[in-house]
């Protein structure tokens, strides 16, 4: 469960996110959309406790800035926009890094930690890749490994920053279906940022449109993805057609 009140983030003195109120219920999927530079990633990082902010951010009712960093890492897992791929690291070892908040500072992985890594790799069909070097995997496979590390953290809240931006449409769908399945199976709360509006609308329960750091529209996908709202904030002409799982947004040449 995520709840923010008047969340404001300043980077080098400039307010990048301003007065954002956000409420994500347990097990819900909320996606933040907005033009480039609207503050989506910054808001996500602040909610993950990785940036200083003003206002309040509560994860499962606890203010994130008052959590110990290890407790925070057990409550919320983040997949950043383009995760670092450490040269030479094996997939299994990479996924095990997700167990860091459970391992004493000078300790080592327990059998239970290894078992969690095994289980996550199996659940994401990654077991055959366990002994491969991460850098040798394709984009879609890597994205699943990034997700696996986040799941190994055992956190109930998953923050995904542009989880599909590096993927073709087939792999986009595959990864988002996977997230949706895991959300249902494991009762995860998902907060994501995305650029592709149609895809974003098909998977999100609710959406939040940020423009210049402020919330300008919020609600179900059909309430946010309207021709008027998108024209105003993206400066684009679009046609919105009703689809089976949400509105289909088509950009049109003016």
């Amino acid at each position: 469960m995520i709840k923010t009140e008047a969340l404001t983030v300043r980077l080098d003195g400039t307010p990048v996110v301003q007065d954002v109120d956000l409420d994500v219920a347990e097990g819900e999927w909320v996606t933040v959309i907005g033009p480039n530079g609207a503050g989506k990633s910054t808001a996500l990082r602040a909610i993950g406790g990785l940036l200083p902010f003003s206002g309040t951010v509560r994860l499962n009712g606890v203010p994130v800035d008052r959590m110990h960093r290890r407790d925070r890492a057990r409550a919320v897992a983040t997949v950043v926009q383009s995760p670092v791929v450490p040269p030479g690291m094996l997939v299994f070892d990479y996924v095990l890094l997700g167990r860091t908040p459970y391992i004493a500072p000078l300790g080592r992985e327990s059998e239970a930690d290894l078992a969690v890594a095994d289980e996550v790799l199996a659940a994401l069909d990654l077991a055959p890749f366990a002994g491969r070097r991460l850098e040798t995997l394709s984009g879609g496979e890597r994205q699943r490994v990034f997700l696996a590390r986040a799941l190994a953290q055992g956190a109930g809240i998953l923050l995904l920053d542009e989880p599909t931006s590096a993927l073709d449409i087939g792999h986009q769908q595959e990864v988002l279906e996977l997230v949706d399945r895991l959300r249902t199976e494991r009762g995860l709360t998902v907060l994501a940022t995305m650029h592709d509006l149609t895809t974003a609308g098909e998977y999100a329960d609710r959406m939040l449109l940020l423009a210049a750091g402020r919330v300008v529209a919020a609600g179900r996908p059909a309430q946010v993805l309207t021709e008027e709202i998108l024209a105003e904030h993206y400066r684009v002409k679009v046609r919105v057609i009703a689809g089976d799982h949400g509105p289909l947004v088509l950009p049109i040449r003016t």
Partner: protein
Amino acid sequence: MISPAGRGPAGRKPGSRQPADRDPGSRKPAGLRPVWLAAAVLSLLAAVIAGLALGSVRLPPAGVAVELLDLLPGVHLNSGLSEREAAILTELRLPRVVLGLLVGAMLALAGAAYQGAFRNPLADPHLLGVAAGAGLGVTAMIVLGAEVTAQGAVPAAAFAGALCAVALTWLLGAAGGRDRSPAALILAGVAVSSFLSAVQTYLLQRHVDSLQQVYSWLLGRLGTAGWRDVLVVLPYALVTAVIVLSRRRELDVLTVGDAEARSLGLHPQRSRYLLIIAASLGTAAAVSVSGLIGFVGIIVPHTIRLLTGPSYRSLLPLSLLFGAAFLVLTDLLARTAGGAAEIPIGVVTAFLGAPFFILVLRTSRAVQT
């Protein structure tokens, strides 16, 4: 929704699975493999025996080994060495070899730790200017301070110089803004090194009376090593080794970068400061007894990376052991290859290290920040 104790995927507690759930043949986490540990210990022993047996006076290796065992408390063996040979062994060669072990272990370990802490494959005690800082610290103490009677103070002066140098390099390397490329840091290190060397030269020019004392130290002092030097370095080396080795998993986490390391519950800056301070302490201890010996921190860790993979859990202990063996063998080369005159050991390591550095430069990929 979830307790601070955390829970595993699918709502299970992480501890609810029993160890028996894993197949015996399933994958082990990256770490020190026994076969590599054995190889490192064996090469260390071989290097020690070779370092003790070879030289202007040749001693039988078997006799050397027995004489070493005889030194152990409670063991009494007859090595068959003459009294003179035994004296050469224990009074001349043994302190030199032990000091070489300590210096090599510290330089290689510090190199590996710097590479992890800066996430920079080119980091090395010398290229970062740390050694020059330590050198200036010692020079300043010899020149300005009173006598060098207080031998224990030499590593402390070296440590102060080393910390100032690494801080300066870091600040200058970051001055280019967020784009903290590996090359920028090393260029800053080179600049800091030159600057500190210039200050050192100036100090020497102004105090010609101490010139000889400083130069004999600068050119490497393994040749004049005695048990006193060993005792001076040992405590610093132990502290460095304990701190750096205990942080080996943290260094693996740091490879994903600060932002992600933080999201995994680490305090990246705190880990980094501690590692840099510990590595600088080890460098200072090494420099304060051996003078300037370059490239060990590049050659040893990178060779081990090629052989055993990038995990710091194997890299750090193996760097310590192989670094020790490497320096003893290099010292052996330095005192035997040149005929009657010893070649300074720093010349030998630079001869081997410079081409190696070019190789690393060409093969290392740009580090993302």
